[in-house]
């Protein structure tokens, strides 16, 4: 099926089971994984992007739009991720950061695509700016754009924008979910914040697959 499928995905460290999930996330849907810190959330993220340390034993399958990505290296998975921090590259301009995300095959209209993307996020004219001069909300939007311009087939959110203050956070959160829905991306949100989970609107599971009501 199209979308992101976790098929009996289990991760163990020694005798301890950290992750045990079976789930199907259709395009535009959000699955929230909620748990306290140390509960296997970040282990799950590492497994999804392909950076799991060798000490962990991972079984099961991850498929994305019917492609088995379980054994693929990070760069070949086409799973975009937004970290807690925006991680904008400080040595590149805003447009440079976005250009880093935009695939090279768009050769002739790079500048136009970047300008259009900025305009959609109410950031028209921000291309030449130094990222350090942007506000937190503006930086978060640039980070989201950079990820989306790379044309991912799924989106992972790692406690997204937990460093932003509450009002701004809900605004950015809504923006991210709206964009993901509009672009038809399956989303996995990893958080410890019930507000995030409620805003996501989809199913909420613990890393071990237990259903959580918020």
């Amino acid at each position, binding site marked *: 099926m199209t979308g992101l499928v976790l098929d009996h995905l289990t991760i163990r460290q020694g005798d301890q089971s950290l992750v045990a999930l079976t789930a199907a996330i259709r395009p535009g849907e959000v699955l929230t994984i909620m748990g306290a810190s140390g509960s296997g959330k970040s282990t799950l993220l590492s497994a999804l*992007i*392909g*950076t799991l340390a*060798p000490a962990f034993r991972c079984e099961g399958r991850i498929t994305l739009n019917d492609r088995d990505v379980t054994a693929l*290296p*990070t*760069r*070949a*998975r*086409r*799973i*975009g*991720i937004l*970290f807690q*921090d925006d*991680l904008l*590259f*400080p*040595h*590149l*301009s805003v*447009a*440079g950061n976005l*250009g*880093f*995300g*935009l*695939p*090279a095959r*768009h050769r002739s209209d*790079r500048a136009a695509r970047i300008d259009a993307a900025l305009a959609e996020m109410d950031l028209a004219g921000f291309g030449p700016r130094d990222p350090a001069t942007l506000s937190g909300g503006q930086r978060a939007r640039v980070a989201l754009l*950079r*990820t989306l311009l*790379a044309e*991912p087939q799924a989106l992972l959110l790692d406690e997204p924008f937990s460093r932003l203050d509450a009002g701004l956070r809900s605004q950015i959160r809504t923006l991210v979910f709206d964009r993901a829905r509009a672009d038809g991306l399956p989303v996995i949100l990893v958080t410890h914040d019930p507000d995030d989970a409620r805003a996501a609107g989809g199913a909420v599971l613990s890393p071990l697959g237990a259903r959580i009501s918020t």
Partner: protein
Amino acid sequence: MRLRAGLLRQVPRVTVLLLTLPVLAGLAGTLIPAANPAALRALANWPGLEGAVRLSLVSGIASTLLALMLSLGLVAALLEHRSFGRVQALLSPLLSVPHAAAALGLAFLIAPSGWIARMLSPWATGWTTPPDLLILNDPMGLALIVGLTAKEMPFLLLMILAALPQVDANRRLTLAASLGYGRIAGFGLTVLPALYPLIRLPIYAVLAYAMTSVEMAMILGPSLPPGLSVQITQWMTDPSLAHRGTAAAAALLQLVLVIATLALWHGAERLIRRALRRQAARGRRAVPLDLLRRPLITLSVVLAAALFAGLAGLSLWSVAGLWPFPDLLPDWTLTTWTRVAPDLLTTTGTTLTLALLSTGAALGLVLSSLEAEHRYRLSPGAGAMALLYLPLIMPQVAFLPGLQIAALRLGAMEGVLAVASAHLIFVLPYVYLSLAAPYRAFDPRIALQATALGAGPARIFWTLRLPMLLSAVLTAAAVGVAVSVGQYLPSLLIGGGRVETLTTEAIALSSGGNRRIVGAYALLQMLLPALGFALAIGLPRLVFRHRRGMLPA
């Protein structure tokens, strides 16, 4: 530190003066005799000039570029990879090996009668006697470039590893990979721009050293004509004093060459930075670049293995009896050791005295400076860091001769003390670099807790900070000992040839061709620093064997 507050506060400033004054005074002392038309004419008429200049430029730039690309490549290819720990464990002991020992080992390995030739003879080469080939001391300086690259690569790798946590490398690499970038491209486009400014000074030190290396160039480099710095050293140590003017003019030229090359390198940095930025915005994922990973790793491992094999060869020569070509192994005997034991003991004693004096002084100054920084909330600016690197970047041949003359004129200092003071100039920066990070990382809450319990700053320093930092202090001391043991030119020039260290003796003997004796000296030269590091690792484990919180995980 029960120093009066005013005194302690001045220590950082005094330390910087102790580093910079001798360098600048020595520079003036060396270069003033160069302002003499006859000296400049004599240098211009020296037939070896062009070759010496070319050698300095080519071997310096090529080896620095190679060492930098290999160490960056290793990190880009292997960071967070399983085998990275193993590669690190292989490379880090090489840091403590003095340049002379490394060069001698490599020379024994690749010489026509060396291990490589023996391994291939006679079955592959047909040689039953060592071939008449100019592998060593080749006129192009290839052997020298290989030696410099192999020796500087572990140093640059360590500097890169120390800087990586400050640039959030792991997350940047993961982000780049999640956007589809290859490892090498991701590293070059996202980590390198932030990393490079942090390793710029060490790179400049490597470049300046490689351009002006005396001991490695004497052993591995061409001899007719030799490299510029080697020739300057020969002129300077010529008993007739007739070549002093020419030497001064050549030292001036060497200095100008180094400054010009550093300026050129700096210009290239800017071009590359701009190119990388443009490249990043183009969005090319450059995955095929990752095909370079395997060759990069292989080449680094081969270089490290060559150094190890060379050092093993040195040790073997010191216990070799008859060892005809092409036998792979010699007859064993301890004759060499018993024969040179008396000389070796004296020389080892001198070497150790110099190392302990200079390292002790350096530790005192560095600890006082760091404590002063901490107590008075001083923080060294970029200027102070550049001054710290001044003795490492300034070519030794450009300021040591002047310092030698000054020491003679003053007459107050001679022999071992004068040489130890000269060693201090080079030991101190490394001790500071090694100790500063762990000192600053000391948990401030511990000192706060102690203050709340009524302890003053002196008691906190002696009973908490120093014991808890024992491991870091001993490691810094081992680094200092390794640096001091490895010094060649300061011992030779400031000692006026009368202070014999393992390094000066090993190099003096190396031209004589008695490999067994050279092997014995070089082996000890290599063992002293190794012993220092062994103590730095072992002592804290012994002292704190009942304190699990003090042991490394």
